């Protein structure tokens, strides 16, 4: 019996029990659809995080004081004052792979404009901060080295701040807002950047010359140290080199001897991203494994129904053998039935999986639509394998029937 005839017989047999065939397929359909969905979801979320995260900066390197431990108690990094002006200057002047360095000094203050107010987080930075963090100017200008020297009371604000303070559509540039008790002139507005992939709004920001923060804000008054240093490598490939360079300089600045630990933490953008994606990866794998279990349940459904089919058609099997069907012919007949059953189920599952992924990703979550061709290909192979694996025993049972006994079966 050739393949074409086998397929024809199998499809005819399946069509005779449409309802039953469909219910049997349902397990496979659900299994495959959920595997496809989980894989798409995982990939999409990784891409989404990657996309948002890369908006955080270009070849960015973050340097922060190390958490200091005293007797096992984490004192937080604010208690250490290990990054200062000297570090900043040597990183600016003595590096080869570092393009920009900006310190950050934070302070929070209530922002007031007219009748509006908004709790603001002031970030004291150097002008190159916007290059490191990939901010674009929407309006006005970024402050300059000149402003830095004069401790100028100027600021550049993000879109969220604009929305909260300038509710009547005033042009923010040129206006003066009050930050706590300090009046500050808005000289620029940043273009919107959205979230950073870690749930932070990158537009809720007030950039101020770091010298201004250090001198004019009570909470930071007199502080000569920085919360963090942000640097950017000259090229993406140089991130590691830049990090090494920075480590070397800071260690020598801080007089750390060989064998002693750094008193600062240094992270490249890539490292943070990898750490973040690994969580999604584990989650995706877990969900996919659960989906795969439903595929196995679907396979068991096929096996069950194939046993029923073989029993129902015992007489037919006996007849086929009597007129010349070999065991192999009978085996292949039932095997093709189960394989076709699971392949059709798989096909429907793939269609549903892609459709549902589209609805979920594009319409609900607004994440990038990623359909993994690999997952589709593998799903198809898994279906074929499921059909063979779970169809094997029932088909073998049919093939091993004694034609005389089978013919007599009622």
């Amino acid at each position, binding site marked *: 019996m050739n393949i074409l005839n086998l397929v024809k017989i199998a499809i005819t047999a399946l069509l005779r029990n449409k309802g039953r065939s469909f219910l049997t397929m349902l397990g496979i359909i659900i299994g495959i659809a959920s595997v496809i969905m989980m894989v798409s979801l995982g990939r999409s979320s990784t891409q989404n995080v990657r996309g948002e995260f890369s908006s955080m900066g270009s070849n960015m390197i973050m340097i922060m004081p190390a958490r200091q431990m005293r007797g096992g108690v984490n004192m937080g990094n604010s208690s250490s004052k290990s990054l200062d002006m000297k570090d900043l200057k040597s990183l600016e002047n003595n590096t080869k792979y570092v393009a920009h360095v900006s310190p950050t000094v934070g302070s929070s203050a209530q922002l007031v404009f007219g009748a509006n107010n908004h709790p603001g987080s002031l970030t004291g930075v150097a002008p190159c901060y916007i290059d490191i963090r990939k901010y674009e100017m929407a309006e006005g200008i970024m402050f300059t080295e000149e402003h830095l020297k004069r401790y100028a009371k100027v600021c550049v604000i993000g879109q969220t701040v604009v929305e909260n303070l300038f509710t009547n559509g005033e042009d923010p540039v040129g206006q003066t807002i009050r930050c706590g008790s300090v009046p500050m002139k808005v000289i620029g507005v940043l273009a919107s950047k959205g979230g950073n992939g870690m749930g932070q709004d990158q537009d809720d920001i007030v950039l101020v010359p770091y010298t201004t923060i250090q001198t004019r804000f009570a909470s930071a008054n007199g502080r000569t140290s920085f919360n963090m240093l942000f640097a950017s490598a000259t090229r993406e490939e140089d991130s590691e080199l830049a990090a090494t360079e920075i480590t070397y300089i800071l260690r020598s600045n801080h007089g750390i001897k060989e064998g002693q630990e750094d008193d600062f933490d240094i992270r490249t953008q890539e490292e943070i991203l990898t750490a973040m994606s690994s969580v999604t990866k584990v989650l995706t794998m877990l969900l996919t494994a659960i989906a795969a279990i439903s595929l196995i349940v679907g396979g068991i459904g096929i096996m069950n129904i194939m046993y029923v089919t073989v029993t129902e058609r015992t007489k037919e099997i006996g007849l086929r053998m009597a007129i*010349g069907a070999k065991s192999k012919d009978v085996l292949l007949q039932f095997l093709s039935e189960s394989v076709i059953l699971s392949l059709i189920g798989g096909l429907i599952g793939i269609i549903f999986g892609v459709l549902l992924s589209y609805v979920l990703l594009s319409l609900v979550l607004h994440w990038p639509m990623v359909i993994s061709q690999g997952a589709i290909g593998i799903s198809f192979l898994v279906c074929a394998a499921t059909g063979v694996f779970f169809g094997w025993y029932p088909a073998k049972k049919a093939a091993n029937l004694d034609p005389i006994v089978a*013919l007599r079966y009622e």
Partner: protein
Amino acid sequence: MKEIIEIKDLHRTFRVGSEDVHALDGITFTIYEGEFVSIMGTSGSGKSTLLNILGCLDTPTSGEYIINGISVNLLNKNQLSTLRNRQIGFVFQNYNLLARTTALDNVQLPLMYNHEVSAKERRERAVAALEAVKLADRMNHMPNQLSGGQQQRVAIARALVNDPVIILADEATGNLDTRTSYEIMTLFQDLHSKGKTIAFVTHEPDIATFTTRTIKLRDGHVVLDEKIDQQSAAVALAEYEKNIQNTAI
């Protein structure tokens, strides 16, 4: 004359629990080409067991069986399948047609397991076989759209389609009324007159009179093996219909 079937001292023993049932207990005979043999005997005498062995569905416990010059004892399972497919035509008491499958497809079935026959030839031969049983006009009917007699004729067409060296029928008229039985026997006689060799199991003596030779079994032994005067089934059918008409008047 050419020997189609030769069996020598054939035994078939079934083990039931701790007891041996000797269904066939030393059977020897030869069937020649062109013979129409009826195999008779009471229930349990071993007729079906014998026919299963002749049809290569079962293998003897001991003894020799040669069909068309091939020694069956030497063949493996696959070879037996091929032998059944090429050399034997089966007709069963309960027709054994595939449900929801047209008469034509039912008749084609044996040729589906023969790689040497193309799809075109398969169809042509099936149509010819249906013509031979006078059912060409019912080709596309399903079994449940056919009468018992018509179903049995489809089954006979299926047995003919591979041009077997022998047709084996086990109580082929067992499920049919007298009239239809005579019609089927007329058909068998027709095939026989065209040169077919037929072995026909029955326990109805009047059906046996339509054959040319009777082999009678009892408890697994041949107790009678004789040539008989063949009666015409067509004549018997005509007489039967006349009687029916007379009783109706």
